[in-house]
Every structure is written in structure tokens, then in C-alpha cells.
């Protein structure tokens, strides 16, 4: 069946696409719009601000609270992503390449962890972390993040590893590489798109998390932005913090966008083409 590409069909699909994009983007744009409004015009219902101002942004960067939270967020998310991707890569490689007893069980259990409702773990984690004295520290957030990001990482990565022809690893070994060299110099570069995809997913998960961030932190020492936002009061307690919260929301969206844009270039499909016949 040939796909109809009449002008009318194109128009209809185009309109539908625009509708979906608008539906998805309006809240984001609204937040952005609010963040540029002055307190006086905040509730005037205009989508495009009548009076533009950068005061909200100034406010949030003036308070130590937000900057500190931003640093926490970046630090925690980056470290958790790095560790999860490295561990996940090793585990996924083993799962896709080796046949070992209990492999199915391992994959099953890691799937179970991913499905476990996080909220049911918050209280036990809170107790455990207090006992271990890692409550309200970076480590206290990084550990649960890694736990929940690992299954995700293992799944995505093993799918990528499975696509790499095993002959390449054999060839590397025949060429004189050790197992480690074969992995680092041949397999890992080919799995790079997978590594970056996984990194993005894990980073977004850590960056967006609110539940752990609010439950396992108590001070600015380790509070990440999503949690910090809920404590936002503006410059003084008599001020309406809506504008500032919106500005902060916009600011924390930026790293995600940058992160995705940066890595997107590396996610080139067809990197393995030409390795084997075809």
C-alpha cells in the first residue's frame, strides 16, 4: 500500500504534529513567560509578558540557596551517571557475551528493582542512611540513584552490546589484545552511542528526582534543585516567590537541554556499519 502524500494529507499531519508539539510545550513556555514577568503583572493572564524583567533570575542567583542546590544537583547527577554507566557497561557486557549460571535470575532481579515503587523504600532508606551517617550527604543520594539507574543502564546497554558482532572481539584477541584491551579499544568505541544514550537517560533520571532528594536531605549541604525549589521563599518572606520559582525551573531545564544536545551528536546510528559483510 503506497503512502498517500497528497497536499491535503501533508497538511493534516502537519496540523496534528503542531498540535502535539504545542500541547507539550505550552506549559514549558508558560513557565518561561512567567519567569520574565514582574510581580505586578504575574497574574494578568498574558502569555507574552507586558513588562520584561530579569529580576527573578537575579533573585535566585543572589540567594546562596539556589546556587548551592545547583552545584549539588550537577555533582550528584554527574557522579551517579558516571558510576552507573561504567558499572552498567560491565554488567551488560557480561550479560550479552557470557553464559553463566544464574544469568536469567540476575536479569530478572535487576528488572524487579527497576519496577519497585521507590516510595516504599524511602522510609527504610532514611533509617539506614541515618544509621550509616550518610543522611544528607551527596553519597546518600548517589547510592540510591545508582541502584535505580543501574537496571535501566544494564538494559539499554546490553541491547547495544548484542548488536556488536562478536567476531570483532575475537579478531582483536587474535590481533594480540587482552580481554581488557579488546573491550576498551574495539568494543567500547562501538558501543559509544549506547553509552551516551544510557548516560542521558540516567542523568535525566537523577536530575529530575524529587522523592529521594526531599526525603534523604535536610540541609543545603546536599539538597538538589528539585527539592530546593520547594523550599523557595524568594528574597524575603513577604514576597511572592512564583516568579523566582519559575526562573529556577527554567534554569534547571537548561543543563538537561545542553546535555542532550551535546551527546546527541555522538549518537550516530550505523557506527558499526562496515564491520562485517553487507
Amino acid at each position: 500500500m503506497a503512502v498517500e502524500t497528497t497536499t491535503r494529507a501533508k497538511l493534516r499531519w502537519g496540523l496534528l504534529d503542531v498540535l502535539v508539539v504545542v500541547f507539550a510545550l505550552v506549559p514549558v513556555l508558560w513557565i518561561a513567560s512567567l519567569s520574565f514577568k514582574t510581580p505586578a503583572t504575574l497574574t494578568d493572564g498574558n502569555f507574552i509578558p507586558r513588562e520584561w524583567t530579569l529580576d527573578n533570575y537575579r533573585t535566585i542567583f543572589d540567594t546562596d540557596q539556589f546556587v548551592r542546590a545547583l552545584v549539588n544537583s550537577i555533582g550528584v547527577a554527574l557522579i551517579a551517571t558516571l558510576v552507573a554507566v561504567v558499572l552498567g557497561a560491565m554488567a551488560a557486557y557480561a550479560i550479552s557475551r557470557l553464559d553463566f549460571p544464574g544469568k536469567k535470575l540476575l536479569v530478572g532481579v535487576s528488572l524487579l528493582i527497576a519496577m519497585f515503587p521507590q516510595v516504599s523504600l524511602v522510609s527504610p532508606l532514611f533509617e539506614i542512611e541515618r544509621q550509616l551517617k550518610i543522611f544528607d550527604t551527596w553519597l546518600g543520594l548517589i547510592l540510591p540513584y545508582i541502584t535505580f539507574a543501574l537496571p535501566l543502564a544494564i538494559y539499554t546497554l546490553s541491547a547495544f552490546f548484542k548488536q556488536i558482532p562478536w567476531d570483532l572481539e575475537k579478531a582483536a584477541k587474535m590481533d594480540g589484545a587482552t580481554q581488557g584491551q579488546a573491550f576498551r579499544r574495539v568494543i567500547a568505541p562501538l558501543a559509544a552511542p549506547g553509552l551516551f544514550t544510557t548516560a542521558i537517560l540516567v542523568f535525566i533520571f537523577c536530575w529530575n528526582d524529587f522523592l529521594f532528594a526531599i526525603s534523604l536531605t535536610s540541609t543545603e549541604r546536599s539538597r538538589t534543585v528539585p527539592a530546593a525549589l520547594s523550599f523557595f521563599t524568594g528574597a524575603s518572606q513577604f514576597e511572592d516567590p512564583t516568579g523566582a520559582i519559575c526562573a529556577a525551573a527554567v534554569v534547571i531545564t537548561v543543563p538537561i537541554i545542553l546535555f542532550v544536545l551535546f551527546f546527541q551528536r555522538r549518537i550516530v546510528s550505523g557506527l558499526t556499519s562496515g564491520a562485517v559483510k553487507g
Partner: protein
Amino acid sequence: MADIVLDKVSKSFPDGTVAVQDVDLEIADGEFVILVGPSGCGKSTTLNMIAGLEDISSGELRIAGQRVNDKAPRDRDIAMVFQSYALYPNMTVRENMAFPLRLAKLDKETIDRKVDEAAKVLELTSLLDRKPANLSGGQRQRVAMGRAIVRQPKAFLMDEPLSNLDAKLRVQMRTVVSRLQKQLGTTTVYVTHDQTEAMTLGDRVVIMRGGAVQQVGPPQELYDHPKNLFVAGFIGSPSMNFLHAAVQDGELHTALGTVPIGDRVRRELEAADAPRELILGIRPEHFEDAELVDDDTRRRGMEFEAPVDIVESMGSDKYVYFTVEGEKASAAELEELAADAGATDFAGAGGNLVTRLSAESPVAEGQTRRVWFNLEKIHLFDPANGRNLTLHEGRAAGALAD
């Protein structure tokens, strides 16, 4: 440069399947040995064991006199060309070829010189900066070879290196491989399932079936003096014709008539446990149009008449397919060969007779033709174990030998 010795090498998997069983093979320094057999015969497993990519379950593997069973592939100093070429897609041709040298930690100048030399031999010089994705199948194949020869290993292992090429290129690359091996004089073990490649390339051919070696020898010897039914059916294209033959009163009753037998075969058949039924094997080229046979030759064979089914004129000669009546030859080996060839292709055991007659023969489809065949060239096999009864001290002498 080294010799490779397999001493009762076996491979069994944890689930109990035995892939390779007691393979004894001595490959001399500089020799070009082909492992050939249908899929699943253990030839690739054997090669992987030599390479070190598979563990050896029992037996000993020696390269240059040294036991290497437990050595990692990288410590065996052998290079391998894969069926899939296995080029590193993220590296250019130059980087691909330099990879083994870089791992060996040679200095950059030496690496460049060696890569350039190898590229020149394989006519890859103009492609050195390309990525594998931008190469044709034949070029990729040459890069894979280049990566193998560049570090001058003790031996080359090739795992069906030409099977992904189209027919024309395959013939062309066959000569390239052959010339390269002669030029470098490096011990080479080459795995293929294509008997033509096996016949044309190797100094010696090892025929495998079900994990066991069937026969080892120079191609012509395997062709002329097959030890058993399997070897006879596997080597040769079109393959040997097999007919059912019943032993009765010192003669063989076949679909082609009653075939007399000589003293030597008779003695074999007089043994108490001798088979009462045999399989008669005869190659297509040992038939001739009876009109074209001179009297002297005629005496060495016998004649029969059969309806012509199909005539394929090749120019130099004619392949003529006859329909013959009578019982079909049946043996486990023949079924296996038929399965490997894709049943329809393997006419050898059916009611069809493939003959190769002179181009001068006026044979035409639909007519009944008188055909002569050479009794000195026929083989008789025991259907129970496939043994060639006409083989005496390694030479086949036909049914009439005294």
C-alpha cells in the same frame, strides 16, 4: 613460521555434545591445509581451537613444537581471517592493519613501513585512509587479509574467508589467496564448506564429518581414491553417482546391468560378515557415449541403455542426465550429503544418473541412448559403514582388479 600438530584433539560441550573427536593432524611448516566438510562437521571448532578462541577439552595442540593448549590467542602468534572479515568499523584501513602492530608496541616508523608493504602486496595503498564502511566486499576481504599478514605470524587461520563474496570475485580472490600463501610461505589452515575451494587451494585437504576426520590427503588423491562413501560423495562436482548393487553369484546386479567383479573384490565379499548389498559409485566423467568409444577402451567397461532426461551442453563437454530404474542406494552418509547439498541438488543417490559425455556426442533429450562406463573406475562401498571395498593399500582399482 611453524608446524602445527593436533594430537587427539577433542572438543565437547558441557551439555554433552561432542563437536570434535580425536583429531590427529600434522601440518608441516609452510603447508596449506584445508579443513572441509558440511556445516556442523566441526571444522570451524577445530580452527577456533587452533586459534585459542575455544578451549581444547582433551588432547594436545603444539605450534612449533610447543604445547599451546593453555595459551591465550595473543600468545600463540597466529593471525586469523574471519568469514565476516571483522574489520574494526571505527578505524580506517590503515588503523585496522596497524592494530596488531600497535598492540605489539612497535614504533611508529616500523608500523607505517609494514602497513605500507602489506598494502602494496594486496593493492590497498589507495584505500588506506578509508573506513571499512566505504569499501566493497572484495576490498574489505583484502583488508582482513592485510591485517593478518602485516605482523608476519607463525601461521594463518582462515575461516571461510571467501564465502561472503559473489561467485566471480570468489574465483578471483582464490588465486590471490593462493599466490599470497605461496609468496609468504606461511603455514595456513583454511576452513571452507566449498569443495571446489578445497580442491583448488590446498596442498592437503582434511575432510571432516560429525567431528571426526574422514580422510586426509592431496586433493587428487581424495578424488581418485576416496576411503569411504562420504568422501566420495563430498568431493567432486557434479558429485559421484551412487547405485544400489546386490551381490549374487559373484556378480553385482545393478540398475545398469550385471557388473562383473574381479578376484580382489570377490575375496572381500567371501568373508562371513561381508555385506550382501553394496553401493556402486561412479563419477560422471567415467561415462561415455557408446558410439564414441574405441574397441580397446570398450573392453575395459560395459554398456547400458537408458532414456535421456536432460542435456546440458557446456561447450567443452555435455552433462547428460539419464533416468534409471531400480532400487535407490541408501546409506546414512548419502542422506547427510543430500541434506547438506539441499536435497534437490544432490542427485547422486536418486534415480538420476549424471554423466559427462564428449561434446561430439549427438545425444538429444527424449531419446534412449547407449552409454559406456569404465569398470576400472568404479567404487564399491559397504552401505553399513561406508568403507570403500575397492580401495587396496590406499589406491582404488575398480571392480575388476585381481
